[in-house]
């Protein structure tokens, strides 16, 4: 994969953001008020794992802000920046996942999930509540409870759906080349 910020990355950010925004529409309630499983998070993690931290971070930032604005008419900034943290975090090891080369195996899946759990913890247990308190002066216990549920919901949906998506896409994408390297 090309290392510099090329045309593919520009387009991936654009269409990835569009996809993220559209998927804002699917919210799966899990029985706790105001907390949902968000399949769009799995797609964000997928795109970050394939295209790297810059693409992941920008999709998180732009996608969340646009999605909020287009669907809800307001932007909750303290939750926009953590989204970028998740995208950057998951994208950090994108080279080692080898999704496009068809090399996403069990080891890569374990690395992917470790990284996503750390990134989500940083984003939703630490950053989002702290920003909520600093920017909006919301009550501390309310925002930490919300953050904890967001963390749980996100690691579940990324862990299940994100991992499956990566396995499936890696299998399909890896097949496209029929050439093999000789020993």
């Amino acid at each position, binding site marked *: 994969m090309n290392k510099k*910020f*090329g*045309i*593919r990355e*520009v*387009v*991936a*950010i*654009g*269409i*990835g*953001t*569009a*996809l993220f*925004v*559209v*998927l804002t*529409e*699917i919210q*799966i*309630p*899990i*029985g706790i*008020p*105001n907390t949902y*499983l968000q*399949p769009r998070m*799995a*797609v964000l993690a*997928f795109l970050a794992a394939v295209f790297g931290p810059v693409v992941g971070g*920008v999709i998180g930032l*732009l*996608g969340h802000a*646009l999605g909020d*604005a*287009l*669907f*809800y*008419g*307001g*932007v909750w*900034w303290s939750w926009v920046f953590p989204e970028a943290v998740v995208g950057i975090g998951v994208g950090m090891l994108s080279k080692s996942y080898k999704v496009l080369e068809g090399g996403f195996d069990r080891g890569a899946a374990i690395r992917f999930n470790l990284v996503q759990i750390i990134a989500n913890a940083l984003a939703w247990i630490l950053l989002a509540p702290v920003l909520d308190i600093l*920017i*909006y*002066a*919301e*009550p*501390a*216990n*309310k925002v930490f*409870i*919300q953050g904890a549920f967001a963390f749980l919901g996100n690691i579940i*949906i990324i862990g*299940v*759906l994100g991992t*499956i*998506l990566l396995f*499936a*896409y890696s299998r*399909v994408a890896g097949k496209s080349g029929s050439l093999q390297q000789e020993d």
Partner: protein
Amino acid sequence: MAKLLSYEENDTWIHRLSGITKLMFFLMWCALSAMTYDTRVLLVMILISLIAFAVSKTKWQQVGSVFKVIMAFMILNLAAIFVMSPEQGCAIYGTRKVLFHIAGNYDMTRDQLFYMFNVMIKYFTVIPAVFIFLVTTNPSELAASMNRVGIPYTIAYSLSIALRYIPDVQGDFHRIRNAQEARGIEMSAKAKLFERIRRTASIIFPLLFSSMERIDVVSNAMELRGFGKYKKRTWYAMKPLRRADYLVLAGTLIFVICALLVTYADGSRFWAYWL
């Protein structure tokens, strides 16, 4: 189907402003609304927002359904604040005047009520600004004007692609969902949680994979036409910044600075009529 806010062509004073002017106004407005808890400033902001909203000739049909969703969110959020932290207002203002007792540990205090009133009107300062920005800004022109003020055109182009492809991807999404529903896959709340994740996956798979293909197709097309070869590019939708743009930018900046001075005049961003 959720109705999205989208650009609609019209010819008002606000439509004629450059995209970057409206973006800067929107960002400064959000930042100010987030920072200040000064009720006087917030009320002035609401007034200005409403005037701008009227000038932009935005119709209720364009934004009504989204507005109702925001109201529902706002009420949930306020309820959550009160249930989890009924004493937050007292902690912020450092005073406590009980209006009446509710039950258990819950008192309705003047301080909490005033704090929640401020949280509520903060919503109303930003909502008209978001509506105006989204409904009156032409996406292509926004990308052009972002590039003009020094943002690299690759970034501006990403944003332009995102705005351009949202309706397409949304169309794909609805087609795929209808197809899956026609095959008998239940998407509504009737299904169990894990089953719903599995069924959601049956939409996400085709949608994601077709989007990956789209990324290939579009980036190949752009590569063939030499995108990114030069450091600069020209824009079809470019509009020069006019006097009105500079006036709006300067006016907003002055207003934001004054509002912050008023807010922080006593060293705290919270203001209450009894303090």
